[in-house]
């Protein structure tokens, strides 16, 4: 079953307290080579039937209006995979936004 993946990140100019906490933990583990961590969200929408341009357009709208809040987040990617467990099989049906 095709799956549409939507990726959302906190806006780049905003402090990401969650990422900051993860960076702190990494540093305490001795992993000092990382200068920044940002934590976002990945939504996997399993689709009944074919992923048409119309479906992708609808997902793009939902991504902007429901899955993200444009005041605090950016939609950084929308793409189609054949199976969510297998990222390597991603197909180029949806251009990243």
């Amino acid at each position, binding site marked *: 079953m095709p799956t549409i993946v939507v990726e959302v990140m*906190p806006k780049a100019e*905003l*402090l990401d*307290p*969650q990422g*900051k*906490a993860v960076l702190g933990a990494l540093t305490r583990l001795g992993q000092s080579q990382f200068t920044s961590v940002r934590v976002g969200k990945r939504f996997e929408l399993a689709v009944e039937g074919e992923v048409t341009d119309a479906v992708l357009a609808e997902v793009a709208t939902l991504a902007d209006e*429901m*899955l993200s*809040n444009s*005041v*605090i987040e950016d939609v950084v990617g929308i793409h189609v995979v054949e199976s969510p467990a297998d990222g390597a099989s991603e197909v180029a049906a949806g251009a990243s936004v």
Partner: protein
Amino acid sequence: MRIGVVTFPGSLDDRDAQRAVRLAGAEPVALWHGTHDLDGVDAIVLPGGFSYGDYLRCGAIASHSPIMAEVIQAAERGVPVLGICNGFQMLTEAHLLPGGLIRNDHGSFICRDQRLRVENTSTDWTNGFTDRQEITIPLKNGEGGFIASTAELERLEGEGHVVFRYLDVNPNGSLNDIAGVTNARGNVVGLMPHPEHAVEPGFGPDTPDAMRSGVDGLTFFTSALEGLLARA
């Protein structure tokens, strides 16, 4: 006058808000998120809590619930709407109020009696305060950092839409120390601190006079009630 309090799955302070409405002298009306029925109320409170477990984003799923369509229409007609904490988050998600709320900058939940300055006394929920009055009400949140774009912040400040500002400490990293805002009409107000927890002597924040005697939150509800009575 009847003031509705909407209960969502995960609301925590709906009963406290109802009690505050009663102590202010109005009739509290329990409303349910899953209906389109506002029961003819004269004003609406969206209470605090963790609707839908804060899934997706705080207040996001609740902002799409059936009753919110009616709340949005009522707000656009000028019905007074107060969003407290999670209710404030819902109002920003529903685009009834500007800005957004993100995780506290220090990463921790915080609970304290918080001093605030009332910056705008012309809203439906603050007209009983004096200009720049300083009040103390409880604050308790994990995601209370108010943010908006630089342009939006300038507009909010310029047009006097900042209603409350944190004093002493900024508890969550809110930009410009903003604790609460209003819309252009002044009928929709949202804030992170909890006025409904400071409405009855013996159960409010400490004051210099006596322990737990703070009732600064009651003025939110009496303001709305008196405004409604004046218009009736």
